[in-house]
């Protein structure tokens, strides 16, 4: 029996069936895998936070190496001494603060709500690190990351990631040679808050000058670079009242 595939009714039935079949396959797959995917994302956040404070397996090779996923949960509780949630003037501890979606909180703040700001206090070799999540816009899509500062507001490490920056250009913000440059830069100029900027032509490609609040830009990735500068400046700015108390106490 040959089916007349030209009939309108056939076309409609075919389209409807196709939508239902493909929809169910995808929905089934998504719900089946969502637990595993969430777990992966959770471990990745812990890896990123630890990476920013220098707990990673970076060798001399120049590639980014996180704490292995099998060990990250243990390392996270070992090095992260406290997870704070700053909500306006209220500061509370929350063991799951790292799961707070800072981007969602940013959108809530735009609607007038007080946002929850997670802050992680790490300790390694007797030294304290204050680690803050960041998010912003690159050239094509969102970028995000973590920055760790010490009590003197000097950057101890960063981690950047992106959703869709151009491979070979903007995507290099997550390369070590770029991220390593931030180490030692201060987010203050004197006592004034300036953040750390990505600068073109600062005549410091090896990044030896550590008091200029600038790191050398990536060639061909001006807009991603500007996005990173803005991301650091705006995200860390939210924590200034808290950071100021730490700095003064220090």
């Amino acid at each position, binding site marked *: 029996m040959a089916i007349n595939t030209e009939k309108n009714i056939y076309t409609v039935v075919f389209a409807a069936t196709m939508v239902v079949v493909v929809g169910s396959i995808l929905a089934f797959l998504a719900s089946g*895998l969502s637990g595993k995917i969430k777990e992966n994302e959770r471990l990745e956040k812990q890896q990123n936070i630890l990476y920013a404070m220098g707990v990673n397996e970076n060798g001399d090779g120049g590639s980014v190496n996180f704490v292995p996923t099998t060990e990250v949960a243990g390392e996270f509780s070992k090095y992260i001494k406290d997870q704070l949630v700053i909500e306006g003037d209220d500061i509370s501890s929350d063991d799951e603060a790292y799961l707070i979606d800072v981007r969602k909180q940013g959108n809530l703040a735009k609607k007038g709500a007080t946002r929850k700001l997670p802050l992680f206090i790490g300790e390694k070799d007797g030294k304290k690190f204050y680690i803050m999540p960041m998010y912003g816009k690159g050239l094509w899509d969102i970028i995000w990351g973590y920055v760790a500062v010490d009590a003197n507001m000097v950057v101890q490490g960063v981690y950047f990631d992106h959703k869709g920056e151009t491979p070979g250009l903007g995507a290099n913000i997550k390369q070590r040679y770029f991220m390593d440059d931030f180490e030692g830069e201060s987010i203050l100029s004197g006592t004034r808050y300036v953040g750390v900027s990505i600068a073109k032509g600062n005549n410091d490609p090896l990044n030896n000058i550590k008091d200029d609040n600038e790191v050398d830009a990536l060639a061909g990735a001006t807009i991603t670079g500007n996005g990173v500068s803005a991301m650091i400046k705006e995200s860390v700015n939210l924590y200034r009242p808290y950071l100021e108390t730490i700095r003064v106490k220090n």
Partner: protein
Amino acid sequence: MALLTKKDASLITDPLADNNPITIQVLGICSALAITAELKASIVMAISVLFVLGAGNVVISLMRNIIPSKIRIIVQLVVVAALVIIVDQVLKAFAYELSKTLAVFVGLIITNCIIMGRFEAFALGNGPWKSFLDGIGNALGYGVILVIVGFFRELLGSGTLLGFPVLGDPVEKTGLYATGYENNGFMIIPPAALIVVGIIIWVQRSRNKALIEEN
């Protein structure tokens, strides 16, 4: 018994040279420009397209007699989008690191004109095995160009291959850079891909007279 008949083999070998999707049919140029600044991205993209085009061609070929011709383009889009999302989800669950590398390409694969082109031109009119070979052949033809372009752009633009510095250190002035050689910043921006592809087309046409059109 030969695994492939002569005709079947030509399904794979033709798109590699004389009927290359990029240099002859000029399809898939958009992704060839976007991601070839480094070799690794080119290779990842080539493998992704190989998988999607091979599997997609088979699916479309199996469905070819029941697809209503009025909505065939939509059906093709649904098939390729569903395939890509399935792969993406499975990788996210079981190979998270790899899935992050691929994230950029997901959108580019769905919109790749070679994939739609092969569905439309071949899979709708041929059996699954032939369609599979055709898909693999075209994906390889696409991949070969991507890898060639990626190789030259990364080498001349960044002085590295797969991230390894092969020409020395441009900042410390070692290796080739000690002689005054500089990286060509132009190579890492997308227009350079167009020029490299142009040169490949030129070389290919000058060597194969059959490809030269008569005016």
